[in-house]
C-alpha cells in the first residue's frame, strides 16, 4: 500500500504520516509546511512546493500523482488541502472522503467512518483504491520531526492571482481544555452585552465561546472561540449555552460535555431537547440574577 501524504501545515504532515504508519509513504508539502520541509523530510521521500495557491499546487501535484501512482492520497482536513484534493478527485474520478475519524485498509479496499447529517449520525463506508482520505485533525499522534532533504518542485501554472493574505485576529483561547464553557449565540443583541457571559465565565473559572454567526459573521468573538462542526469541538464538565438555538452543526460539537445547560427565551428551541437543564427566560433578565446568586454563594 503506497500512500501519498499531502500537507499544508507541519503538524498536519506529522499527523498524516502517523496515519499512514506501515505504508510505503511519499510526502508532498506546500505552503507553510514547505518552509519547514527540511525538518520533516527524513520520514519519507519528500516533495516540497513553495506555494499556497491551490491551482498551482494542484498542477504540480498531478505530475507527482502520475509518477508515484499511490493507492491512497492521505491528509488532515484543512481548507486548501480539501480544495486541492477535490480537484485531483475530480480529474481522476477518485472517491474522496473528508472528516474521517477512523479508517483501515482491508484487501485493497479502504473502510472508513465519518460523521454525516452534521454529525448527528455516522456512516461506515467502503471504497476501492486508489482513493483520497482526509482525517480530522488531532486524531493521530504526530510523529517527531526528522530532518532530511526535500525535492523542491516548481509551483505549476495558475490562473488565480493572490492579492495577499490578512492574518485573522485570534485570541489563543483553548476552549478544548476549559472545564467550564459559556457559549453565546444570536440571542445577544450586541457585542457589548457579551460582558454578561464573560462575567459568568470568570466567576465559574471558565472560558467564553460562541456560535458560528457570533464568531464568524458578526466577529464579536475571535474565530478560535467558534464552537461547532466547522469550528471547535469541546468536552467540558459544564457547557452553558445562552441564546443559542441548538442547530445540529453547533450541538454535535458539544456532545462530549458532562452537563449541558441551556438558557433560551423560546420554550420550543431545539436546544432544550439536547440539554440536561433548561431555563426558559430572557437572558438579559436571567443572567444578571444568576451572576448575583453566584456572587452571594461565593461571598458566604
Amino acid at each position, binding site marked *: 500500500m503506497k500512500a501519498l501524504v499531502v500537507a499544508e501545515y507541519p503538524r498536519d504532515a506529522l499527523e498524516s504520516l502517523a496515519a499512514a504508519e506501515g505504508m510505503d509513504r511519499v510526502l508532498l508539502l506546500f505552503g507553510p509546511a514547505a518552509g519547514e520541509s527540511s525538518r520533516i523530510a527524513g520520514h519519507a521521500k519528500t516533495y516540497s512546493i513553495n506555494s499556497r495557491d491551490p491551482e498551482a499546487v494542484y498542477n504540480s501535484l498531478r505530475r507527482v500523482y502520475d509518477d508515484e501512482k499511490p493507492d491512497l492520497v492521505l491528509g488532515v482536513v484543512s481548507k*486548501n488541502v480539501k480544495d486541492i484534493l*477535490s480537484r485531483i478527485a*475530480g480529474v481522476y474520478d477518485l472517491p474522496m472522503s473528508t472528516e474521517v475519524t477512523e479508517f483501515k485498509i482491508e484487501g485493497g479496499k479502504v473502510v472508513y467512518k465519518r460523521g454525516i447529517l*452534521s454529525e448527528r449520525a455516522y456512516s461506515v463506508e467502503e471504497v476501492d483504491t486508489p482513493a483520497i482520505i482526509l482525517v480530522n485533525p488531532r486524531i493521530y499522534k504526530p510523529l517527531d520531526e526528522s530532518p532530511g532533504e526535500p525535492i523542491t518542485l516548481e509551483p505549476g501554472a495558475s490562473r488565480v492571482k493572490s*492579492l495577499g493574505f490578512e492574518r*485573522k485576529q485570534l485570541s489563543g483561547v483553548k476552549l478544548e481544555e476549559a472545564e467550564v464553557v459559556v457559549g453565546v449565540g444570536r440571542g445577544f443583541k450586541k457585542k457589548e452585552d457579551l460582558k454578561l457571559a464573560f462575567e459568568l465565565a470568570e466567576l465559574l473559572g471558565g472560558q467564553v465561546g460562541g456560535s458560528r454567526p457570533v464568531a464568524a459573521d458578526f466577529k464579536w468573538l475571535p474565530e478560535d472561540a467558534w464552537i461547532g462542526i466547522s469550528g471547535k469541538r469541546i468536552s467540558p464538565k459544564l457547557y452553558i449555552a445562552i441564546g443559542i438555538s441548538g442547530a*445540529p452543526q453547533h450541538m454535535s460539537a458539544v456532545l462530549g460535555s458532562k452537563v449541558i445547560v441551556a438558557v433560551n427565551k423560546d420554550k420550543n428551541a431545539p436546544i432544550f431537547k439536547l440539554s440536561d*437543564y433548561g431555563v426558559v427566560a430572557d437572558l438579559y433578565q436571567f443572567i444578571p440574577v444568576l451572576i448575583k446568586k453566584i456572587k452571594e*454563594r461565593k461571598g458566604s
Partner: protein
Amino acid sequence: MGDIIVLLKAALNPEMVRSKPDGSLDQDAIPLKLSDIDRNAVEEAAKLKGKLGGKIIGITVLTVGPLARREKDLRMAVQEALAKGVDEAIIVADDSITPGDQVQTANIIVEVIKKSGLKPDLILASEATIDETTGQIAGRVAAKLDMPYISFARSLDVVDGKVVAERDLEEDLEKVEAPLPVVVSVTQEINQPRPPTLIQIRRASRKPQKRLTAQDVKDALGVRRRILERRIISVKRKQEIIDGSSLEEIADKLLDILEREGVVKL
C-alpha cells in the same frame, strides 16, 4: 455577463434525524430540504445578476431515493431556489442513480452542463452540504471543466470581467482575482439570504424546469462508494426544564443542581 450556474442540493435534513429501534439510521423517514448554504449561493447569484445581467440556472441531482418518496421535497427545494432568484432549473432524478456519491454527482453535473450547451461565466456552489458535508463537488466540477476555482469565498464581486474574492482560510483571509469563467464555493458568511417575497413565490411556479433521467446522462453514471452502515449518534440528556415562581428561585435551583452534579464549586 454570461450565465450563472448555481449547484443546488436537496439534502437530508439533520434537524429531523430518525432512527430505527436498533439505532440504525432510518434514512427513508428523514425529509430533504435545500441545503442551508446553497441559499447563500443563490442570494449571491441574484446579487451578481442584478449588477451584471445574465441568467441564473440551477442544477440539482437527486442523490437519495426512492424518487416517489422524495418527489415532494425535491420540488419544494427547487421551488425555493426559483423563488429566491434562480431563473430556470435542471433536475436530474432517477431511482437508478440513488444512492449517489460525489464521483457520480460531479460527473452528472458536468454532463448536464456540456449536453445542455451551457457556457456559464460563473458556477456557484456552497462550501459544504448539511448532510454529507464533504465540500468537494465544486472542486471536482472545476477540475473536470478545467476552470479556475476559488474555494471558501467570504466575499465575491465581478469587476472589469474579473472575479475578485476573499477566501476564508484557517488563520488568514486571502484576497484573490481570477478571469471568468470561474467556479466559486461560498461560505455562510458571504451574505444574509432574504426570504422571498410573495410575488417571487408566485412567479417561481411559472419558471421553466427541465427534468432529466439517468438515460439523459448515461455516460456519467457509476458510483464508487458502498455504504456499509449508518447509525444515529444517540444523545441522552435529562431535558429537565427548571421551573420556579421567580428568576431568583430558578437560579438557586440551577446552582444547587450544578453543585450536586459536581460541575461547579462555589
